[in-house]
């Protein structure tokens, strides 16, 4: 038996506890040959009776009754609180599902509104192509001049922002479109381009429109309705 094996059994030997007969014999034989282990066994044997005397003296020592009372009260309160806080599992699942739905909605909104691509789009204006629909800043009464399509989320978002911008800007007043080509009803145009221009009095005169003295000096703001061939079909004035 090695010293390490002896150390495992030394306490049991000193306590005079039940030990396997072979182990006991081997341990005692080892202690007889190893002075260090013998000293350790002696020390343990000397101290165990003292320790037992102390424990016997303290045998009655217990926590006061008030500790038990305090603990039992705490246990009751804790149990009541836990029961109150306990939610049926299906409710917990429903709550979890609602939380997940809310989080995913918020994430989608955040990605849609706050993504870099969207921000870039918001910063850089779209190419200077004339809008086939109504001009953004004009309250147009033409209902049929644009092609009606089902609104995609992108268009919906754009329309929403347009409405906000329109609300922020002062409203313009426009006239009806005056046809410049005979026999063409501007309302019948399904696809056309509207170009915002500022025209001087000679340009108006060239189109066959009367130019009063009040517009001789200042340009007049107008929308030109162009056909597919780029020819001006109609005009309306903006104030």
């Amino acid at each position: 038996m090695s010293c390490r094996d002896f150390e495992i059994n030394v306490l049991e030997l000193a306590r005079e506890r039940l030990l396997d007969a072979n182990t006991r014999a081997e341990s005692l034989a080892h202690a007889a040959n190893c002075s260090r282990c013998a000293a350790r066994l002696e020390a343990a044997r000397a101290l165990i009776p003292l320790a037992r005397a102390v424990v016997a003296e303290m045998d009655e020592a217990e926590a006061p009754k008030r500790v038990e009372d305090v603990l039992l009260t705490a246990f009751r309160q804790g149990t009541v609180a836990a029961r109150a806080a306990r939610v049926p599992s299906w409710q917990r699942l429903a709550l979890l599902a609602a939380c997940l739905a809310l989080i995913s909605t918020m994430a989608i909104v955040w990605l849609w509104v706050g993504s870099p691509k969207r921000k870039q789009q918001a910063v850089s204006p779209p190419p200077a192509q004339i809008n086939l629909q109504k001009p953004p800043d004009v309250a147009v009464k033409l209902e049929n001049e644009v092609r009606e399509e089902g609104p995609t989320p992108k268009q919906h978002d754009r329309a929403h922002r347009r409405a906000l911008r329109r609300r922020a800007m002062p409203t313009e007043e426009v006239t009806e479109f005056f046809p410049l080509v005979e026999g063409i009803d501007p309302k019948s145009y399904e696809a056309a381009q509207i170009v915002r221009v500022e025209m001087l009095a000679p340009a108006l005169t060239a189109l066959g429109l009367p130019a009063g003295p009040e517009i001789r000096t200042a340009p007049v703001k107008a929308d030109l309705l162009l056909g597919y061939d780029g020819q001006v079909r109609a005009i309306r004035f903006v104030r």
Partner: protein
Amino acid sequence: MTVTNLSEAELLRLMAAGDEDAFAVLYRKHQGAVFRFALLMSGSAGIAEEVTQEVFLTLMREPSRFDTTRGTLPAFLHGVARNQVLRLLKRERPYLPLVPAAEDATEAARSVAREDPFRECTRNETIELVRQTVLSLPARYREVIVLCDFQELSLADAAVALNCPVGTVNSRLNRGHALLLRKLCALSEQDSNAHKTQALRCFA
């Protein structure tokens, strides 16, 4: 079947489910050992009471902290108690006596022995001497001696309670025994010398 007949594992399960009787049975079964351990470690009934309360509050609030695969319930409770004792002793350190801690307890025991010569031979005095000497040991030796010699925990359970390997417990116990014996021998020699002097003076 009453809760008193149930196994500890079953009692713990019931306690975790909110059974007050199961908790009361567990408390009554283990509170004495926990209280005595804290008393031997600290030498203060007040600290022992507080430690006992904290240990069982921990068991009540976090029963999952006790892992049956790691050790027995007494080992777990002693481990919690040990941490609480060390925490409280650290907290109370500023209020401890002016005499250095290591010498204080033995000096107190010595003074008790000198004050009343008739009590020297009594069992109570020896017990008090041992207790005070144990209290004077450094905490790392005191805790293994209290756990293994006084509470009679196995080396494995002590290792669980102290959260260290069995080999460490073994070597600390060995050194602790040597230190405790040396202190006790020194004290008894000093006391016997003092008594001899007193006796000579009496006979003179």
